């Protein structure tokens, strides 16, 4: 039998995602794609994949996966609680996040719960051996397309792997957690800020909004103070002739509460959009959990573009700065250095040379 990962227990909402199905919005096709582009990029880089390789997006609670391959290199990125690895005749042991691991046939990866985020990623070296649909493996479950059979994973599914096995070697980890940023979510006014009164726009940027339970891959409905439209809702103040919807668009229907539209959003819509979340902060949106509070702060298009470029440069530096992770049973020297547990001590160890945190190369590249 070909190499695969068998789902022995399904998680809550696990779908394959890459950077999305672009080029078909004109046909009404939503882009879908990763809710947290940074998490997927890091997972792929740790697994040695190109950034746009489809990985498993884990929503809230992940699956249990049985390895049906000689070996598979995986990378987990996201705050897991932690994941466990189980095998016959051995006690389960935890698997750290934000690093790669080599798994062997017969082992079961229990991804478990995500803590403090709604989203985590699992990448496998070489990717999954599944056909792209309209140029992408991203799952869009409302139309039953992409990914694995167009849907979230279910118990009994078997994800075919492109590689039957991988050579043993150094595993890599992120030197420090990626900084997604904090503070208000940055937004650019428009496209329909003129559909709101001055008071309505002030309410939007001066208030705290809370993520409601209605939050999924399509969008997040917020709770908080209502935003006043410029014209009466009864006279069409909350209706526009439908136009295109960009990722992060914040539409405000007649009831006055904002809804931010995300990966699985419809391509066009008829509610006015007061502002659009800057792309630098879309990964933060993709990680929000019901009950979390956010604020919005307005910036210009030019500022948003500059912030995005800075973030991309930081992401590339983080990837260039991967360090060698602890071999099984070994000591993670890099981590010890960072945590100041040892200082100035020189070990005569074959992996000391490549795991020193001062080494810019890091990793095993």
């Amino acid at each position, binding site marked *: 039998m070909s190499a695969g990962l068998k789902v022995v227990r399904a998680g809550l909402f696990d779908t394959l995602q890459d950077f999305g199905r*672009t*080029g*078909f*919005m*004109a*046909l*009404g*096709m*939503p882009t879908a794609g990763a809710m947290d582009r940074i998490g997927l990029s890091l997972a792929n880089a740790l697994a040695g994949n190109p950034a746009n390789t489809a990985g498993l997006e884990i929503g809230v609670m992940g699956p249990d996966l049985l390895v049906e391959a000689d070996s598979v290199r995986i990378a987990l990125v996201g705050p897991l609680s932690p994941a466990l690895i189980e095998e016959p005749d051995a006690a389960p042991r935890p698997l750290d996040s934000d690093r790669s691991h080599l798994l062997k046939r017969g082992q079961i990866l229990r991804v478990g719960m995500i803590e403090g985020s709604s989203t985590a990623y699992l990448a496998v070296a070489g990717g999954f051996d599944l056909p792209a*649909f*309209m140029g992408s493996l991203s799952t*869009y479950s*409302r*139309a*039953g*397309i992409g990914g694995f059979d*167009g849907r979230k994973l279910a118990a009994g599914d078997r994800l075919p792997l492109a590689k039957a096995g991988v050579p043993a070697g150094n595993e890599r980890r992120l030197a420090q957690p990626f900084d997604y940023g904090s503070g208000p979510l940055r*937004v*650019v*006014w*428009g*496209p*329909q800020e003129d559909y709101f009164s001055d008071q309505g726009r002030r309410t939007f940027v001066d208030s705290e909004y809370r993520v409601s339970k209605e939050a999924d891959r399509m969008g997040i409905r917020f709770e908080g103070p209502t935003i006043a439209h410029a014209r009466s809702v009864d006279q069409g103040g909350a209706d526009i*002739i*439908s*136009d*295109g*919807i*960009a*990722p*992060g*668009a914040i539409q405000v229907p007649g009831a006055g509460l904002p809804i931010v539209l995300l990966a699985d959003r*419809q*391509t*066009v*819509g008829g509610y006015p*959009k007061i502002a*659009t*979340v*800057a*792309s*630098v902060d879309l990964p933060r949106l993709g990680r929000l959990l019901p009950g979390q509070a956010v604020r919005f702060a307005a910036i210009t*298009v*030019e500022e*948003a*573009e500059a912030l*995005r*470029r800075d973030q*991309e440069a930081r992401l590339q530096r983080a990837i260039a700065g991967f360090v060698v992770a602890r071999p099984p049973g070994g000591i993670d020297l890099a981590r010890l250095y960072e945590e100041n547990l040892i200082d100035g001590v020189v070990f005569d160890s074959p992996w000391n040379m490549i795991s020193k945190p001062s080494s810019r190369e890091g990793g095993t590249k």
Partner: protein
Amino acid sequence: MSVRYLSCGDTAFTVEFGNEISPGINGRVMALHAAIGLAREAGEIAGVIETVPTMRSLMVTYDPLSTSRADLQPKVDALIARGLPADAVSRQVRLPCCYDDPEFAPDLAEVAERTNKTPEEVIAAHLASPFKVYVLGFMPGLAYVAGLDQALFLPRRSQPRVRVPRSSVAIAMDMTTIYPFESPGGWHLIGRTPLWMFDKRREQPVFLSPGDSLSFERIDRKTFDRIAGEVEAGTFDWSSLVKSK
């Protein structure tokens, strides 16, 4: 006629040609959609990811890591200044539709009554309407097709249906549509096509495109069943529906 540029964050902007639905405005939208497509193919406008036409505006999406709004907007302006042909070359598409089965057309009698017509007159008016696909959206392959005979204008149903069968042909306001999936819906169902507007097995899963000219061709239940069988089996010749203007 000037355009407005609306910001959609740092990954898109919308070029708005007007605030009304008219063939002239939509013609310019479609012409800019085509012009940007050609400029991309010619390598003259790097960083654009795709363009999304609607009734009266075009959203341009871009990669802020390889271009910027300040770089792109003048290029789009230049394309508009070069002139947009109001009536770009479009496909002419004929869709078979069966109006005869009450299961397919549960609202035909009510539409006839509310428009003071006989059901046959409603069908004739639908067949004679010069339809044009304005925009696809809401779900993959769902086309908003304007051009309905004015005599058939009705608001949407006050009680939307929870379940509209796939391939239902429906009217509401000044438009007609064909449901690509079984879904909820509030339009009046007056017929059904044996075709699937979204078929993931096909290389081009979505059949209709913005800008298509569209008319319906009346078929009986027997013909419906034959074509439906071919569509199901994947042997139907879709190119037989299209001729280029």
